[in-house]
């Protein structure tokens, strides 16, 4: 998916040679073309889901992929964003809902991160799992905030400046705009020192703290930012589908989120976009296997981790690098791709080895 293949000036640091911004432009154009090509309600449904889940996965990429926080809470923040947006936009415009989703998820994520700030690893993972569990119970029981049983129907389609995005195509473009913004923000993070600091924090936090990385700020910031992505995605999800219930945000969603990131490739911001496409598209293709689908899914998850740790994006990068080498045989084998390697060395594993 990376964009133009024009050779970059050699003086630029490798991080800028990755064409993130061109990639965002290509992605935006691709969404635009897709929205023109699709011509069925079913196709639009898949397209909308892909766009929303891409944003959700991008947030998880920041939390888990970049800063190495093993969180199960992404699905809960997705749900929180959905409920908060419905609650805030009740009788008002969509922007109120969006603002509500952003503010509520960011505040709750910050509060939660502060509560568990002293926990690491397993403790953090279980705390986030418990948080998700609490969230589903609250969605079901706290009827002043949600609805009886947590089921809300008839959520209006999103609107902006009194224009309602109620056709499949306009909604796809609308959601695509959000994905482009999310990608853009992620691309800026990718290019900023923030990403390098986060990787340092992820791979060895003692050393990172010693060399002056603001560990606490980074950890809280990445968690809140990634969770807010989930909140925005939840807001979009609620308004695009028009119906939410606590079951929409169950444990299956949590596993799907892991699948999005791992299958797509944990080491690249394009991984979750590919992974989301797979998670949305594959179940439809696997319809013929019927009830064996979940079985295949689980086996696939294990198989990908065991055999193919870089995910789908790893495959794309491999093909890309080969293509370059074929086109420009003069370059040394360690040519245009190799300088990135030191930065990416630990990316596939996602976290420090524990011996």
């Amino acid at each position, binding site marked *: 998916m990376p964009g133009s293949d024009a050779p970059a000036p050699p003086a630029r640091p490798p991080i800028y040679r990755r064409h993130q911004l061109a990639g965002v432009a290509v992605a935006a154009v691709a969404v635009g073309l897709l929205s023109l090509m699709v011509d069925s309600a079913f196709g639009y449904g898949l397209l909308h889901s892909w766009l929303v889940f891409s944003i959700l996965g991008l947030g998880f990429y920041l939390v888990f992929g970049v800063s190495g926080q093993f969180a199960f809470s992404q699905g809960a923040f997705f749900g929180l964003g959905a409920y908060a947006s419905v609650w805030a936009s009740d009788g008002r415009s969509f922007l109120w809902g969006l603002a509500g989703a952003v503010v509520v998820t960011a505040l709750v994520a910050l509060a939660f991160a502060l509560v568990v700030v002293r926990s690491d690893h397993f403790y953090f993972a279980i705390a986030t799992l418990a948080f998700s569990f609490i969230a589903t119970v609250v969605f079901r029981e706290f009827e002043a905030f949600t609805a009886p049983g947590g089921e809300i129907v008839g959520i209006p389609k999103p609107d902006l400046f009194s224009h309602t995005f109620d056709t499949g195509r306009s909604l796809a473009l609308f959601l695509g705009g959000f994905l482009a913004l999310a990608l853009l923000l992620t691309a800026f993070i990718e290019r900023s020192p923030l990403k390098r600091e986060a990787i340092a924090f992820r791979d060895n936090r003692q050393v990172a703290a010693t060399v002056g990385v603001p560990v606490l700020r980074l950890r809280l910031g990445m968690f809140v930012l990634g969770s807010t992505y989930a909140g925005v995605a939840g807001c979009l999800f609620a308004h695009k589908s028009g119906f939410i219930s606590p079951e929409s945000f169950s444990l299956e969603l949590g*596993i799907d989120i892991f699948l999005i990131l791992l299958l797509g490739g944990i080491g690249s911001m394009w991984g979750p976009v590919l992974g989301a496409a797979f998670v949305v598209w594959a179940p439809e293709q696997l319809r013929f296997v019927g009830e064996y689908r979940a079985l295949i899914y*689980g086996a696939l998850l294990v198989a990908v981790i*065991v055999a193919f740790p870089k995910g789908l994006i790893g495959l794309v990068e491999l093909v890309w690098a080969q293509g370059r080498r074929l086109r420009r045989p003069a370059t040394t084998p360690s040519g245009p791709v190799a300088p990135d390697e030191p930065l990416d060395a630990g990316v596939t594993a*996602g976290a420090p080895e524990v011996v």
Partner: protein
Amino acid sequence: MERFVTLFVTGLAQGAVIAIVALGFLLIYKATGVVNFAQGDLVTLGTYVAIWASADLELPLLAAYGVAITALFVVGVLIERFAYAPIRNRSIHVVVISTLGAALVIRAGIVLWRGTAPSRLEGPLGFDIVEVLGARVPQQNLLIIGVTAVCVVAMALLFSRTAFGRQVRALATDRMAAQLQGVRVARMSMLTFGLSAGLSALAGVLIAPTRAVTIDFGFSPMLYAFAAAILGGMGSIAGVVVGAVAIGLVQQLGGGYLSPDYAEIYPFVLMLAVIALRPQGLFGSEAGARL
């Protein structure tokens, strides 16, 4: 008072089942450093195997329990072989996600095999009630508490008195040193995965008579077991058992005296409070750095 006794005994029984699941979890964690997220689905699977053995094979109940525990031992070993052994040297996160994948496979397998309709498994004592201090208490709850007590003592002896327990403790203290001293890591991890899955089956058949068995049957015991391990500081057997009992009691008493709608989440509120205020657990901890 009667109400208190009923709630207390129910909470104690709940805590006892959680303690068994938590012991199984602790066993794997000590020997390999892995948190097994398939534990909950192993509880469910064990229960379904027992249902199958007693309903379809028409075995007596205790034999069905035996079949379930044995079958789950094998399943545990298989999980170790397919979801853990190939990636033993990779990041701990990868291993944990792999156990999630195993959980997904088990879950899907159960649905294919038994469908999604809720099932029932009777207890050996039926639904008999005894009076304790004037309160009516199901005998099953007393059975659960008794079996758990035996189980905990057995585990404590296993850990402290046998070569197996010594090796597990050696692995938990210093993996590499243990390996260098000749502890057979592969065999130990197979054994602990098997034993842990067997304990999950035991917990499943004990708690099954008190509720309907569905595909999500094992999930909350697993989550409570994790919380119990955190309360106990991921360390000693005693700490985990006390943590488990605390969780069972908080859930039942909180549900009985505060609001039953939120009964499920009181234990987690307690756990989050412990994580915030005393992250090493109520009784201190020796396992900090591992996941």
